[in-house]
C-alpha cells in the first residue's frame, strides 16, 4: 500500500505516493530524477548519499522516503543559484577537491552542514566533520583545502 508524502525538495513542493519501504535516496533518484545523490554502500558508511534535511546532513540511503514527509530536502542539484555555483562547489573545483566525482555531492553537502554551524573550522575540525564521508580518489588532502577555502570565501562575503 502506498502512502502520500509532501515535502520540499530544492525549494520545490513535491507530493507523491510512495511505498513504505522506499528509501529516500531511491525516491530522489528514481521518482524525482535527482541522480546527483549517489549510492555507495547502503550501510550508511560511505556518505555518497548525503543530503540536507532541514539543514542537517543526513544519509539518504538509511532513511525511508516516508520519514522525509514534511521536511525540506536539499540535494546537490539545489545548491547552485542558477548557473552560479555555491562557494563550496567553486572551492572544490578550484582546489581540485574531486577526481571521479562520485563522493563529491555528499562531501559538498556535509561541508555545507559543517560551515552552517561552524563558519571558520580548523583543518582538524574539517577532517573530523568528514568522518561520515569516504573518498577513495583524493586522499582527502584537497577536499580539506577546498572546504577551508570555501569557509574563508563565505565568511568574508558575509562579514
Amino acid at each position: 500500500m502506498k502512502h502520500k508524502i509532501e515535502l520540499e525538495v530544492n525549494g520545490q513542493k513535491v507530493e507523491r505516493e510512495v511505498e513504505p519501504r522506499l528509501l529516500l535516496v531511491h525516491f530522489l533518484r528514481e521518482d524525482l530524477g535527482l541522480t546527483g545523490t549517489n549510492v555507495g554502500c547502503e550501510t550508511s558508511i560511505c556518505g555518497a548519499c548525503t543530503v540536507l534535511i532541514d539543514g542537517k546532513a543526513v544519509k539518504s540511503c538509511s532513511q525511508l522516503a516516508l520519514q522525509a514527509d514534511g521536511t525540506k530536502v536539499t540535494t546537490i542539484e539545489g545548491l547552485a543559484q542558477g548557473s552560479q555555483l555555491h562557494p563550496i562547489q567553486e572551492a572544490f573545483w578550484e582546489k581540485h577537491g574531486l577526481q571521479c566525482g562520485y563522493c563529491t555531492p555528499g562531501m559538498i553537502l556535509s561541508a555545507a552542514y559543517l560551515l552552517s554551524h561552524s563558519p571558520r573550522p580548523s583543518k582538524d575540525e574539517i577532517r573530523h566533520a568528514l568522518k561520515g564521508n569516504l573518498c577513495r580518489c583524493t586522499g582527502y588532502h584537497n577536499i580539506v583545502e577546498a572546504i577551508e577555502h570555501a569557509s574563508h570565501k563565505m565568511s568574508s562575503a558575509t562579514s
Partner: protein
Amino acid sequence: MAKVLGTSIKRREDPALVTGRGKYTDDIKLERMAHAAIVRSPYAHAKIRGIDTTAALAAPGVLAAYTAADVAKAGLPGMIPVGWLLPDLKTPAHPMLAIDTVRHVGDAVAVVVAENRYLARDAADLVAVDYDPLGAAVDPKGATAAGAPQVHPEAPGNIAFDWELGDRAKTDAAFAKPAHHVVVDLRNNRLIPHAIEPRSALASFDSSKGELTLTLTTQNPHVHRLLMCLASIGLPETKVRVIAPEVGGGFGSKIHHYADEAITSFCSMQLDRPVKWTATRTETNATDAHGRDHVSKAELALDAAGRILGLRVHTYANLGAYLSTFGPSVPTYLYGTLLSGQYAIPAIHCQVLGVFTHTTPVDAVRGAGRPEATYVVERLLHLAADQLGIDQAELRRRNFIPPDAFPFQTEVALQYDSGNYEPALDRALEMVGYQALRADQAKRRSSGGKQIGLGLSSYIEACGLAPSKVVGSLGAQAGLWESADVRVQPTGGVTVYTGSSPHGQGHETTFSQIVADKLGVPMDQVQIIHGDTGQVQFGMGTYGSRSAAVGGSAIARSADKIIEKGKRIAAHLLEAAAEDIELADGKFSVKGSPDKGVGWGDVALQAYLAHNFPEDLEPGLQAVTFYDPANFTYPFGTHIAVVEIDPEIGQVKLLRYVAVDDVGNVINPMIVDGQIHGGLAQGIGQALWENAVYDETGQLVTASLMDYALPRAHNLVAFELDRTVTPCPHNPLGVKGVGEAGAIASPVAVVNAVMDALSPWGIRHVDMPLSAEKVWRAIREAEAKRAAA
C-alpha cells in the same frame, strides 16, 4: 600565448560533477528498462544439486529467471576469458553462471529480472539453490599442501603456474657465503579495491538490428567489448557498443571483465528490452577482483660493506577461484620484474607460484604487482640497515644505481631507461628534517613513553603499460599500445578520439593541454572524446599509469602529423614551399615573414573546402596514431613516513608523510599532486587498516564497509610533496605516469616507520595491516621474551 603544458589548469570535468549532473551508469534510465538481481553463492565451495526458480518466477513484477542451463540453451559461449597468458598457464573454464560447482562466495548462480530493483531483489531471495557444501582452500600457501581442497581438476595442487625470473644459480652462489644474510617472511595483505561507485551494467539489446549497447562501469570499454565478444555473449564486435559514461573510480577493479555484465547482456538479449544491474556494496566486496595476497619468503645477501650481492624471493600468489582478466600478469610481469628496485643488484632470482583458492579472483589493484615488489625490496633494505647498523638512508645510497649507469639492465628483464635517485632521497630527507627527527627519536627512546619511527621507501615502478616487444618477450602474447585520432574541424576546433578511458583522472583537461600546446589552439577549442566503442576505433584503456605516457604520446604523435599536413595546406595557401612554413602560436607563416600567415581556422576550412588543392594534397585534416611505447617508463622517488606509537595500547598514529616523486615532465601539477595524494591514502590504508579477511571455510568476513576499514579524512595527514624531474627519454612528452606511485611507495614506508619505532623492543617484522592489537601483541610478546631471558 600563455603556457598550457605544465600548468595547473582547473578541470573541465568538474562543473558537471560538483552540480550532480555527471551521469554514472546507474543514473541512466531507458524506456522499458528492467532490473536484474544476481543470485550468488553463500558458500566458498559447493556442488550445485539443483536450482528451483519457480517461486521467483511467480513473484510480483518478475519477468524472467535464468541459470547456466538457459545460457546453454540460448547457445551462448557463456565464458569469462582470461586476458593475459603465461607459459604453461592452467586456464580452467570460468562460466558466467556457475554450471555445477561454485568456487567462491559471490560466484554467480542465477539471475532474476523484474520491473524494478526492489522486486528483483525480493525475487532473487526466492530462488532455491540446493548446495552440497565442500571444504575450501583459502590461504595461497595452504592451498598447495597435500590434501587441500582442489579448486579445478585441471590444476592439480591448485597450481595455476610456476613462474621464475632471474638466474637461480648465480643468485644461489651470491647467497653461498655472504657477510650478511637477511631473511624475512612477508604477507602482503589482501585488498578490496572499493571504488566508491559500485559496478553497474545497463544492457540494451535491439532484436530488430541484433545490436547490443552496453553502458558499463569500465576503465577500458574496448577491452570489455573484445572479451565479451570473444567468449561470453556470442555477438560480433560490429553488433556491440560499449560505453563508459562517468565512472566513479576504478583503481583496477573496473578493468576486468566480470560475469555480471555478460549476465546482464544475456538478460537483455533474452527479453529484448533494456536491463540494468547495479551491485550492492556487499556484492562488490565479494566480486570485484581483490588485490595483493602474497605470502613470500624474501632474502638479501650483502657484503661486509653493505653492498647488495643478491636478492632471492619465493612467493605464493593467491589468484582466487578463477583467472581474472589480468590476473596472471600481476604477480609475474608486474612483480618479478621490479625486484631490483633502485639498486644495482648483481643477482636476483624470483619464483612465483600462482595458486587457485576458493576466494574472489585476484587481479590488478592500484599498483598491481609493483607495490608487492616494492614491499619485498624496501622491507629487506630496512632490515638490512638495522642488521648491519648502517643508517637507512646511507644503505640505500650505497646501493643506488649511479646516474651514469643508465640505461641500466637489471637482472629481472627490465632495462631502466633513466633515473637519478639520490636527489629525490636528499630532498625527502631535507623536507622531513631527518637529523632532527633522529635526535628526537633518540631522546624519546631514552625517556620512554610514546615512540616515533621513520620509514623510508625508495621505490621504482614500471609504468606506461606496456611496450609490446618487452612483454611479448616475457610470454604475454599481447601488447598494450594506445590509439589517438585527432581531427581538426572545418572551423578550426580540434576533436580528439582517445582510447584512454578515464574514471576520475581528468583526461579531458590534460589531453586538451597536450593538444593546445602542440597546435597552439586555445584549450577550449579542443574536445576530447573517450569511453565509447561507437566513437573511438579501438583503445586499451586507463590503468597501469599509462594514460599520459601511452595515450598522451599517441595524441602528441597525431598532433605532429596534423601539423605536417597543416604546413602543406598553409604552403598551398601562402604560395610557398611546405619546408618553409613554420607554426607558432597557432599561426602558420613563411619563415622570415611572420606577419603574413594563416591560422588553424583558415587552414582547416580550406582542408575541407579543398576545391583548388594540388593533386598530391588530399582533402581533410585528420591523423591517426597507434602508439606502442619503446619501453616502460620508470618513475621513482623516495617517501618518508613518520609515525608515533603508543606502546601502552599499540596505537599507530601517522604524524607526517613526505613524498618526493619523479614522474618525468608534468602536464598539470595540480592533477599530478592529486594522483599522488590518492595513491598515498590507499597505500597508507593498506599498511594500517585495510584487510580482506576470509575465515577457514572461505566466508568473506569483511563483506561490507562495516568490516573493511577504509581510511577516513581524520586518519590521514596533509601530505608534503615535492618532485624531481627526470624526463622519460623515449616518449614524445617526456612523461612517465603518476597514478600508482603513491600506492606503490607508501605501504612499506609506513611499515618501515612502525618497525623503526618498535626496534628498541627487538621487533623485526609485523604483517600489515598494523592494527593497534597486532602492535600491542608484538610489544607484549617481546617484553615477555625479554623478561624470560
